């Protein structure tokens, strides 16, 4: 609380300084300040002024700045794929990229967003650690006329643009592959972090596919759990306990991501079941694709993060330039679990199985060497 008040004070001070320096200053600055005072209704008009300024002056002030708030770099994909894609999209539009990392702390992320704003961000892309805790910062940004893109994870504010892969779809794709292989039998479901809405979206996708079979008694769920922090080692322990409980009578495992799938496969391997019990995952982690090639994991749903990054980058630039939410290309309305109608860009993921491994190789997502390490020659098409 105190912190926020202090920042507000600082912001007010900055405004006063800007106003004082206005005498000989550039017009664009005033334009920007107008936008702020104009409020959300006039965002478009105000932002037009900014664009106009950009057209007429060549100073550094008017350059678009897009701030990205990462929740945590400690996951394989963000820095490797998403960040370069966002950067490329911004570079193409002539916008500047600034960023911050909250290190998995929801509190830290609140401060991060405020920092990005005070660094002059014209639009924000937020990968939320916690979609609810981030709300005050998002609201404050929107009130200041700074558009917000909710990146990959839902933020329950209809003012934000939600750019993501269709996570329910991801779950459904995982379940479709597994359900095709195992139409009847005992299933284990390893879900991700409880506080992450995606864990429930994915579960919803599972339900769409196997719900009927469960109700009909063809499929029995013999173990289902959330996993703190999506921690692979914890997923391994959970899987071991489920196998013990079910005396190995498990025919399929729905694991919500690849990291946890690695723990699940290790647990299955200890029972000699790796390769026999199909396991799902998502993210197309390199190690997971290798497992798909080896046959110990049935599917990894590939959300080409580069597509996501590009879409988010382009949308952020468009919003900063004053495009209205609903006018951003490719948007649809999406009813969130929190009852909001979110303007969203929902990208389609691709399920990667042994049959279409060549897709990830062709996209240079993974090198053939990495993909085929330890794979018997001739057993998988993509490995020759």
């Amino acid at each position, binding site marked *: 609380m105190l912190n926020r008040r202090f920042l507000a004070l600082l912001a007010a001070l900055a405004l006063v300084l800007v106003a004082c320096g206005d005498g000989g200053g550039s017009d664009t600055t005033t334009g920007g300040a107008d936008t702020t005072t104009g409020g959300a209704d006039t965002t478009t008009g105000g932002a037009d002024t900014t664009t106009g300024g950009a057209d007429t002056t060549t100073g550094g002030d008017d350059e678009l700045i897009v701030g990205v708030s990462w929740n945590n*770099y*400690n*996951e*394989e*994909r*963000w*820095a*490797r794929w998403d960040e370069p894609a966002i950067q490329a999209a911004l570079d193409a539009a002539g916008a500047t990229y600034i960023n911050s990392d909250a290190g998995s702390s929801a509190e830290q992320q609140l401060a991060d967003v405020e920092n990005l704003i005070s660094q002059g961000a014209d639009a924000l892309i937020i990968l939320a650690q916690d979609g609810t805790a981030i709300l005050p910062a998002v609201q404050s940004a929107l009130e200041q006329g700074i558009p917000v893109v909710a990146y990959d994870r839902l933020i329950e504010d209809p003012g934000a643009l939600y750019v993501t892969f269709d996570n329910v779809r991801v779950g459904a794709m995982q379940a479709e592959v597994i359900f095709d292989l195992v139409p009847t039998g005992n299933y284990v479901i390893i879900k991700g972090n*409880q506080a992450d809405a995606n864990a429930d979206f994915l579960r919803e996708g599972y339900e769409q596919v196997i719900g009927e079979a469960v109700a009909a008694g063809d499929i029995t769920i013999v*173990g289902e*759990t*959330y*996993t*703190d*922090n999506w*921690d*692979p*080692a914890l997923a*391994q*322990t*959970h899987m*071991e*306990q*489920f196998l*013990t*409980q079910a005396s*190995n009578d498990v025919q399929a495992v729905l694991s919500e991501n*690849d*990291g946890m799938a*690695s*723990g699940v*496969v*290790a647990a299955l*391997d*200890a*029972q*000699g*079941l790796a390769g*026999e019990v199909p396991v799902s995952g998502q993210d197309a*982690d*390199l*190690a*997971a694709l*290798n497992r798909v090639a080896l046959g110990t994991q049935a599917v990894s749903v590939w959300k080409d993060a580069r597509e996501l990054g590009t879409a988010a980058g382009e949308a952020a630039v468009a919003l900063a330039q004053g495009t209205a939410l609903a006018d951003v290309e490719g948007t649809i309305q999406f009813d969130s679990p929190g009852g909001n109608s979110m303007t969203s860009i929902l990208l389609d993921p691709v399920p990667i199985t042994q049959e279409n491994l060549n897709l990830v190789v062709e996209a240079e997502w993974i090198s053939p060497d990495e993909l085929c*390490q*330890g794979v018997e020659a001739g057993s998988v098409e993509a490995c020759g």
Partner: protein
Amino acid sequence: MSVTELPPSETDEADGVAPSRRSLQSAVRSSEIDTRTLGMVALLIVIWIGFHFLSGGTFLSARNLWFLSVQFAPVAIMATGMVLVIVSRNIDLSVGSMLGFVGMAMAILQAEILPDFLGFGHPALWLIVLGAGLILGALVGLLQGAIVAYVGVPSFIVTLGGLLVWRGVAWSLASGRTVAPMDSTFQLLGGGSRGSLGEVASWVVGGLACLGILALLSYDRRQRKRYGFRLRPRWAVVTIAVVGSAAVLAAVWVMNSYYLPENLARQFAEEQGIPWPEGGLLIPVGISYPVLIAIGVMLVMTFIANQRRFGRYVYSIGGNPEAANLSGINTRWTIVKTFMVMGILVGVAGAVTIARLNAATSGLGTLAELYVIAAAVIGGTSLAGGLGTVAGAVLGALVMQSLQSGMVLMGVDAPLQDIVVGLVLVIAVAVDVYYRRRAER
């Protein structure tokens, strides 16, 4: 302090046969068995039996106990080192992050660097990687310990910094990638399907352990005779020998009652050219390597704590740092060494963890510091320093892991698990403090 009450009787009542509580107390005292340890064991038995019924009879199955033993190994290994760190009035909050860092370094070394020179599957690969991990752990400990002891920054701060630094380094090493798979020999360190001793070797280890117990007891008795000290009553010695050996053999029996899963047994039969018998093939798995490593670490650390100068100095620093210094002990170097030992043990635990997961992720070991510290504290280590045993910490780790795995078996949700573990930690320490205070009166 004026003594108005009579202190607890110090007279030897071992010969008295009155069936009172008093005589039981003095009997236990004359046998020199630590009542704290007995209490811990009792707590563990209560937890186990409770879960056994609540889980519908799965908890005390050989299979669950086998997995429990593997799951508890990394925390137990680190807890033995944490005892020394805490006894010397310090703390190491960085062990979880260090595990991530050292584990990631070992993973990259074996999956990406060494194969270029040695080729995949080189027989010495695992040893080089493990050695490198231990050295790296020792160096990290040296660095942190030196800052604590020679620069004088409180260990809480140094290792809090380490918690952030090493996690960041772990991430930077692989830019957040998951590194997999591990070398096939290295994987044995994590247990898994082949990382166990098998039936015969397990019984041999058990037998050796029993002989070890007898040897220690007889050495103790000989020393006492030699110097003319009071001997433990014969019944006590015999009881310790019988109970100790029985516990060892029972543990081996449980480990040997977990049989190789059918699929692996079939594979084994194929490899050996044995026809698949009608009723299936029961191949005992035996003691897994991680458990063997944990037991080995526990014995070595107990020995260091009780029988080496270094251990004595650590306890003296915890008891009274000034007295230790005035006695001519190099207290600073001793502190540095405790952090180095901690680092080496993190290396061992890291190797076991990545071998078991067959992968290293940059989030490896997150929150492990809390479990390790909790294990040491539940095991009777006082955060004020000076008090704590290695064996207690291992028991503490076993209590923690039993709670966790038991609750998963029961299908308890993750948040409730955290609540229970947290409550047990506080209650266990509260009970301990209460009894210690009573004992001092």
